[in-house]
């Protein structure tokens, strides 16, 4: 069974500090990581290959340093994984729909894919649009917020999963091929083995650009994008005006209760 795992490389928010604010981190702050949500997607992909055979192809669109994220993925998945780097200066400044267009073309080029897996969102842009839009462009059913894969029926070409909703859980079945975005409950991502890391470091990862994918310049990058983000700034600092309340628990409770009732938040 052919599986695709979509993976993005993002800044590492653990590096945020007094000196490293959001803007600096977006610009170039330090080493980048695999989008944490996408590690769950890759783990799910590797498990599906272990159960049903085939291979999980990791697709990542981004700047050249994205190769590092792909190697991290290969180190996790070893022989069960392949990787393709979707890189082209023409891809830069793509909005979620252009990104989805590029990913959708790449999925078609991988060929005969049964399941496309994505993370819940990418922690940098955090749109959570891309995977839905890949499904829409490919005309595949989409199952979001997947917390359990109950059954994949390869002959019947169906999949049954449990989705987390805001107010409950839904068991749902659909036809393959399908796009899934997964949540953490699906299973902790495995660590890369030492051998895996060494092998991945030497792996030759193919690059597919706009030409290879048959995409014209006006459907990708800033040209093809319908939204832009010309103005990114630091969020307004909240003037919390911390008031420390001191005293014995009973007194503190009285004072705080007065204040919270006066604030009208209770």
């Amino acid at each position, binding site marked *: 069974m052919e599986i695709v795992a979509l993976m993005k490389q993002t800044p590492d*928010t653990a590096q945020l500090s007094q000196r490293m604010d959001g803007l600096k981190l977006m610009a170039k702050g330090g080493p980048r990581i695999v989008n944490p949500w996408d590690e769950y997607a890759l783990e799910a992909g590797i498990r599906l290959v272990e159960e049903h055979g085939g291979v999980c192809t990791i697709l990542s669109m981004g700047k050249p340093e994205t190769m590092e994220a792909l190697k991290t993925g290969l180190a996790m998945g070893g022989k069960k994984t392949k990787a393709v780097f979707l890189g082209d200066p023409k891809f830069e400044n793509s909005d979620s729909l252009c990104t989805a267009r590029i990913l959708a073309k790449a999925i078609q080029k991988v060929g005969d894919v049964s399941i496309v897996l994505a993370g819940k969102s990418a922690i940098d842009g955090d749109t959570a649009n891309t995977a839905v839009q890949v499904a*829409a462009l490919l005309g595949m059913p*989409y199952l979001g917020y997947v917390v359990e894969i109950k059954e994949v029926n390869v002959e019947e070409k169906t999949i049954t999963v449990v989705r987390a909703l805001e*107010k409950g859980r839904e068991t749902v079945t659909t036809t393959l091929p399908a796009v899934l975005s997964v949540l953490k409950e699906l299973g902790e991502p495995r660590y890369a083995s030492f051998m895996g890391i060494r092998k991945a470091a030497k792996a030759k990862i193919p690059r597919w650009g706009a030409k290879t994918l048959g995409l014209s310049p006006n459907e990708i990058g800033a040209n093809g*994008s319908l*939204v832009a983000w010309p103005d*990114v700034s630091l969020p307004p600092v909240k003037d*919390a005006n*911390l008031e420390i309340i001191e005293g014995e628990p009973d007194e503190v409770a009285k004072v705080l209760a007065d204040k*919270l009732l006066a604030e009208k938040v209770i």
Partner: protein
Amino acid sequence: MKIFSVFDHYEGDVDAISYETVAIARKLADANNGTVVAVIMGHDVSDMAQSAIHHGADSAIVIDDATLKHFRIMAHGEALLKLAQDESPDIILLGANSNGRELAPYVAAKFGVGLASDCVDLEIDNGSLLATRPALAGNVMAKITFKKGTTQMATLRRRVYPALEADTSRSGDISTASAVLSEDDIPTKILGLETAEGEISLNDASIIVSGGRGVAGEEGFAPVKALADVLGGALGASRAAVDANWIPYKYQVGQTGQTVQPDLYIACGISGAIQHLAGMKTSKIIVAINKDPDAPIFQVANYGIVGDLFKYVPALTAEFEKRLK
């Protein structure tokens, strides 16, 4: 200017975000000579149309069909897409709840229009939508501009824009439209639906009381939950508490959990790591209880108690029990 405001509901109850969305649509329309059309998709949902008008819409379009009883992205997406193609609204707004964040990108992709997700503010600038949204877990704010000449779509984050009081004297046109897909055309079938009873969802909660590593074990959540209960609030947790298996993942607040924005957030034994703050720092009032005076949680807190949560939390519970009786 015609603005669609799409309603969402669960088992017959309108999701509060729908009223917030129609309120911001009203604001944009009033400032720009526009009209607000509520779009309601579901089954046996006609009474929601009147309520949408009472809450700010000028008119409503209802698509009532058995295939739309529960949210299914393709069924709802194709219906909304067809309506958008027929009516060419200038703007389509949805609530950024889990359904809205699936429905909006689906329709935007098929319609070929721009989308700004999870916005905290919306304005009209030069006849075009200008959206403000947080990115990088709330550590930057981005202004999103749209290419002119097409429909513009956005989803609105919960609890950033107040709903209007229902005004029952408001009236408006209610019309109907048809679903697009028949049951046979929809590949996705819902086999079971299980509602988590008796818990206030973190998303809608106006009060959240959270525990972190400081609660020191599963039993340590008991006093935290008691305080949440007496306040009629929801229970939350830091990742450290979830990873230690003291409480299930669905309670996790933060970058890899839920983003919440209650009126009151009480953090008990939570240090305030940047990833936790990302999920709660825009709460209206934050109270921190922590024995370490240098814990970063105090940097975002309005009120702080430096001390043992096992002494202060029960005292707060007892005090509120008296006051709220």
